[in-house]
Structures are given as structure tokens and as C-alpha cells.
């Protein structure tokens, strides 16, 4: 193709003529969310395990328009360059498709997500159960529309469970955005772009333990407390949905074998 021949011409994505990108009226008290949700209402979540046959375990999730696939490989031989280790290793990678964002090829600069995913999962996995070997957790964000990292983390823990990797508990993750006076849970892309601050909690609900907590932006102490409580409640609910998805697939498998 002509476009491949080294000198790819500069392209742009045509925008809407009427440049009235309605700014979010977030500072107002009676502001409504773009997708019509309540402030403390999460997007409907859909989970499915076993999306990728080639992997040891995998899961797919849809939170509104955020769509993510996670594959787990292993435990398998560590890279040769790695030193001997008594405990297992966890290796994480998050990548985006070129069409995940409205404008092509803008989703790829989330290098920090891979290490954040690693930190969020590390505490939940019983690494002693697979010494000398590595478990690879690879995530691909098919479509991105906000709260990508929390979704990736939750799906990854489901994929790990699907692969039969021993964990202390499922890991659920939820974020809230602070928009003026309001706290909105499970923010979408537009909300994240105009947020004053964000808070993400990754926890193991059955044990009431937090594996990762990130806070960015401007927060007051009471707001942080409120946000954390919101997240923890949502995580507990999310974990319930994830658990029922696992049970479903397990009973399906039993039906098939019997």
C-alpha cells in the first residue's frame, strides 16, 4: 500500500463542525452525569471467564464502553536471565488497541499501568505456591472509556482465578473522581478528564484488606474518608458479581464433564 511506503502522510481525525463541546457543568450541585447515572452508581458490569483458549486462564469484562481482555500464562519457566528464586514471579503488561480511544493511537501512553497492575495483584497471590516459575498477566484494553485501570485489575484477578493460581482472595478495584463538591464513582472518560482529584482502591473484600491505594489531586480529609468508604462498598459488591461469574463457569464445566 502506498501509505506504508515510509513517508506516511500526516493525518487528522475530522472533528465536529460545531465546536460546542458542552463542558461538564460539574461545579453545580444539580449536575447530572453524561450517561445519566447517579453519583454513587457504578456502570453495569459484565464478566466472562475463558475468553482466550490459548491461555491458561482468561477473562473478559465490559463496564459500559470500557472493554478489557486479560490472559494469564503459566506458571511457566522464568526467563533465563532471571536469578533463582524461592517464590514465584509475577509479570504484568497492559496494552491498548490503536482503536481503543476516540482518536486513533492515543491510548498507548499508559506505561505506568503495567507496574500498577503488578503492585495491585502481588499482595493477593500466594507466590510461594509456584517457586522458580513465572506467571504472566497480560491485559489488552479493547475499548477505553474511563476507569481503565480499576477494570483491568478486577478482570486480571478473575483471569488468575480462572487459571487456577492460588490467591488469598479475589481482588476488586474501584475508583472515584472528585468533581467540585461531588464524588462520582466509576468515572467515565469525560469525567476523568475534568476531575479535581481521583482515588482508586484495590482490595480483597473478604479479608477487608487493601492491596493498593492511589490518591491524586486535591482532597480534604473528610472527602478522602467518604471516597474510601464508597470504594470499599463498591468493591464488595463487585467481588460478589465476580464470584458468581466464577461459580457459573465452574458449574458449567461440571455439567459438561458429567
Amino acid at each position, binding site marked *: 500500500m502506498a501509505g506504508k511506503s515510509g513517508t506516511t*502522510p*500526516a493525518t487528522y481525525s*475530522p472533528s*465536529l*463542525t460545531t465546536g460546542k463541546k458542552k463542558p461538564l457543568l460539574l461545579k453545580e450541585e444539580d449536575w447530572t452525569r453524561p450517561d445519566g447515572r447517579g453519583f454513587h452508581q457504578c456502570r453495569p458490569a459484565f464478566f466472562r471467564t475463558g475468553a482466550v483458549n*490459548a491461555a491458561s486462564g482468561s477473562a473478559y469484562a465490559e463496564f459500559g*464502553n470500557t472493554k478489557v481482555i486479560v490472559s494469564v500464562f503459566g506458571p511457566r519457566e522464568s526467563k533465563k536471565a532471571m536469578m533463582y528464586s524461592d517464590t514465584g514471579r509475577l509479570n504484568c503488561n497492559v496494552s491498548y488497541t490503536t482503536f481503543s480511544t476516540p482518536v486513533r493511537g492515543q491510548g498507548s501512553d499508559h506505561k505506568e499501568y503495567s507496574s500498577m497492575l503488578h503492585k495491585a495483584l502481588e499482595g493477593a497471590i500466594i507466590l510461594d505456591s509456584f517457586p522458580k516459575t513465572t506467571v*504472566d498477566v*497480560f491485559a489488552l484494553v479493547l475499548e477505553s472509556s474511563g476507569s481503565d485501570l480499576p477494570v483491568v485489575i478486577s478482570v486480571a484477578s478473575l483471569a488468575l482465578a480462572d487459571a487456577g493460581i492460588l490467591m488469598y482472595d479475589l481482588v476488586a478495584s474501584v475508583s472515584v473522581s472528585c468533581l467540585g463538591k461531588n464524588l462520582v464513582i466509576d468515572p467515565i472518560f469525560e469525567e476523568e478528564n475534568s476531575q479535581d482529584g481521583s482515588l482508586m482502591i484495590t482490595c480483597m473484600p473478604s479479608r477487608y484488606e487493601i492491596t493498593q491505594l492511589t490518591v491524586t489531586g486535591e482532597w480534604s480529609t473528610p472527602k478522602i474518608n467518604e471516597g474510601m468508604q464508597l470504594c470499599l462498598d463498591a468493591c464488595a459488591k463487585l467481588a460478589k458479581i465476580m464470584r458468581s461469574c466464577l461459580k457459573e463457569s465452574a458449574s458449567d464445566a461440571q455439567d459438561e464433564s458429567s
Partner: protein
Amino acid sequence: MSVPNAAATEDLSSEMEVDAFRRLFPLRYFERHLAESIRSDGRPLREARDTSIFLGAVASANGSALVKIGSTTMLTAIKMEVMIPSLESPDEGCLAIDFHMPPICSPIVRPGRPAEAEPVVSKQLSDTITSSGMIDLRELSLVGGKAAWMAYLDIYCLDADGSLFDAALLSAVAALSHLQIPAVAMNDDGKIVLMSDEDGQKQAKEQVNKEKRKLTLKSIPLSLTCILHKNYILADPTAEEESIVETHVTIILDTSGQLISLYKPGGPVLAYTSAIQDCVALTRQRVKELKSFLDKENSAMEVE
């Protein structure tokens, strides 16, 4: 205990568990099935796996398709952007095809190290679409010499289980058949902008592409991969079969029966004319089948 050698496998096979036998002696396992004219997944030798096409899988794209052949899964999306056409071809747009194998799709792909097949499949797909003459690039022109469409076609392999090229080509073709070129106008700065419905009535700007439209696709190229083992021909191999048998033949025919490509990269088995003719016949049948799937999906979309 000594390591069992090939001669001992005959005796072992009766007492060994099936799964262990499959992993330890993949070739013998494979050949035992062939002798019974059946494959390890229960298919007859020359039958392709169940195939499904789902159009419009990516909401934010101008055209998209999700294709499954067995468990091999491909997700394709087309995004349209605007470019200034090159001087050599001022009346033509451009189509850029990229094939991606993200690490989620297969245990052999690792992050940071792109799979070997990636550039090869990308190149073959581009060649196929070009030489089939399926798309008239002039249809992608907007304003001669000033603006034209650049169609970015990205194919992601979500699950790799053999016959990757076939699935990739089918999903690319399906996405192209689903592609809707958005309605645009040129503003005073010479930039192309999208038109919303209200603008259409105002007629203030110079309209370039009045309404959403589809590309006219001439003959459509579709393919079938076969593997050759001794005198056997197996259609649409899985990843396991591909790893055991090294001789692959991919034939691409277009819907008018022209041969677009006959691709056989090496392999220990030589392809004789009779085998080639058999493969062509199988491909012809498969192309007909795939075309009917594609037509069905497209007419279902139109009803909606």
C-alpha cells in the same frame, strides 16, 4: 528408568493416558487420528471449523468486525482520518493495514517482542487487498489534490489457534463491508470537519461527502489454509496441528474465481499438481461458504 524411545511408544500407547500420549508423542497421536480419517477435535479431514462473523463490534470505529474460526478470534476496526493526497495520485485515498498479535493471544508472544508473523501477515494482507482490486482507492478521495481519506485498518488477534491469516483476511474484509464513510464538509480553513444533522440543512459549508456511504466492493478475496502431511490434506488447521505439520498451503481466491495468491512457504512435503488442484477445489468451496456468511451478516445489518 530409561527414557522411552520411538520404538517403545507402540506398547506404551495402550497403557498411557491419552493426554500424556498427546503431549509426549504429538506426531504419533496425530497420525493415529489420520489413520481413522478423523482429527483430534472430531472434524473430518477436509472440513473447516465453525465460523462466525459479528459486524460493528467496536462502537467508536467507522467499520468493525469480530470473526471467530473455531477459537481463533480476530477483532478488526477501521478508523477514517483525513490526509493530503500524494502528488503522484491526487485523486486517491489510502488504506493502511496493520496486523497485531498482542501478548494476550498466544503463549509464544511476549510483550516488547513483536511476533515474527506480525509484519509478514500485514504485508500479505496488504498485497491481497491490493492485487484483488477489491477497493477502488479513488472512492476514498474527498477533494482532488487537497483531501482524501486515510483508512486505518487494524486487526487484533485475540486468540491464536491456527489459520491466523484466514481469520485475519475474513475479518478485514468483513470490516470493510461494514465500513461507513462519515458525512463531512470542508470549512473555510480547508480542514475537513464532520457534519452533524443540523449542519446538513444550513448548507453553509462546502459539502464534500453529503451522506454516509459504503464502499463498493468488487470481487472479495477469501482464503483457506491447508496443511499437507504425507498424502493427506487437512483444511483449516488448529495451532496444535500447525505445530506438528510444517507444510502449509494458503490459497486466496476472489469471489469471481480468480487466484489471488497461492502461498506455500517451504515445508518438508512437496506439493504436486494434483494436491494443488485439490486444495484449490477446497478453497473454492470454502470461499462460497464464507461469502454467504458475510452476505447474511450484512443483510441483517441493513434490516436493522
